[in-house]
């Protein structure tokens, strides 16, 4: 993401990033556990994913060179997102400036971008694995947070934790419906190889020209 190579259209995500990082919006999103987890973190990752689509071709090729099958970078995104799933990481970001900085750097760079770079290279099975992991994670955490009697984050009230849990369950339901809907209407039958069809139409990282559509993550 060196400044010299930045596409003019990258100005919007950069502005969005700056907005997310400045106190008014940052504080607003961090006052509630739900917006912190389900809005701020995904938005940061999404910005990274968007920017990954704008990488200069040479850098992109070099990165692809060590990302066979999309697996190494997917691993990177999984590890980095696993860290930010730790309740104490969330507390840490609120209590310590250096962890907040780490959050703002690592989510776009180590979660969003590698996922975008990997997505189209991943096999159908690997994508299915990611979708099911996301779904099961949302359900398990959502259930846990809606019934846990103690707070997992010392910075948030227990009712916010319950709200987060219910939001996660709702999100999982919607995501599940959407995935099922795509399968039944306009998708291809499960298990059939997808040569650049439905599944890749929704990928995060695309050639710069077509990148105006919404990401689905």
């Amino acid at each position: 993401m060196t400044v010299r190579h930045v596409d003019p259209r990258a100005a919007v995500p950069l502005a969005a990033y700056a907005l997310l990082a400045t106190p008014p919006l940052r504080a607003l999103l961090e006052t509630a556990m739900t917006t912190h987890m389900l809005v701020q973190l995904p938005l940061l990752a999404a910005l990274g994913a968007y920017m990954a689509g704008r990488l200069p071709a040479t850098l992109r090729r070099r990165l692809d060179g060590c990302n066979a099958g999309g697996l190494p970078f997917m691993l990177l995104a999984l590890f980095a997102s696993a860290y930010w799933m730790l309740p104490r990481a969330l507390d840490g970001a609120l209590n310590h400036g250096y962890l907040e900085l780490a959050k703002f750097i690592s989510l776009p760079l180590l979660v969003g971008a590698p996922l975008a770079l990997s997505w189209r290279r991943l096999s159908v099975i690997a994508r299915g694995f990611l979708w099911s992991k996301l779904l099961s994670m949302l359900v398990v955490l959502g259930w846990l947070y809606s019934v846990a009697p103690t707070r997992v984050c010392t910075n948030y009230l227990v009712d916010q934790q319950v709200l987060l849990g219910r939001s996660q369950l709702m999100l999982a339901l919607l995501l599940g419906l959407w995935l099922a809907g795509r399968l039944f209407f306009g998708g291809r039958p499960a298990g059939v190889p997808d040569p650049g069809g439905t599944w890749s139409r929704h990928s995060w990282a695309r050639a710069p020209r077509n990148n105006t559509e919404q990401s689905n993550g």
Partner: protein
Amino acid sequence: MTPRRRSLATAVLVTLIGTGVLWWGTDGFNAFTAESARRYAVRTDPPVVPVVLLQDQDGRHFTLQDLHGRLVAVEFIYVNCPTVCVALGQAFQRLRDALPAERLGYDVVLLSISFDPRRDRPQRLADYARRYAADGMAWRVARVADEAELALLLQTFGIVVIPDGFGGFEHNAALHLVDRDGRLVRIDDYDRPLAFAAQVRARL
């Protein structure tokens, strides 16, 4: 190197560094929440409690250092607390009853500290003390005399207090043990006061 080998090397590197970061971030897969982290931290590296002026239910001023040479069990409360502090109060009652009576007040002191000093004046602290039959000797109920020192005390003990919007507070509740040298050595669940009592007895 071929792309395949480079990819393998990347994957291995990512796994090693990723596992390392998760290891670091959870104190060796021991603490996944900030609450468990503070409990783990005091056990491995007990912090010295700060010199903070307290005032008890009888209006007496003292510091934690005045209790040097004695074990001090500490809990953080506020008098108006309808929920968790009731459980804390009862936990302290059971702790007191589980400790040898002749050592209470001499070798070991129970101390409830209010983090709402503005409202919890000695008068109200005395109300709280009466509720649990805290005698002011073996069990003292106190507030921070100088509100400016409250933050330091809470930070050392790892207590995060958030107003709940209804005049009360949400706070992490636990039983804390300060040893004879004034170091915070243990933090345990308040719903297992007898296990905590065993810890205290082992140090008597």
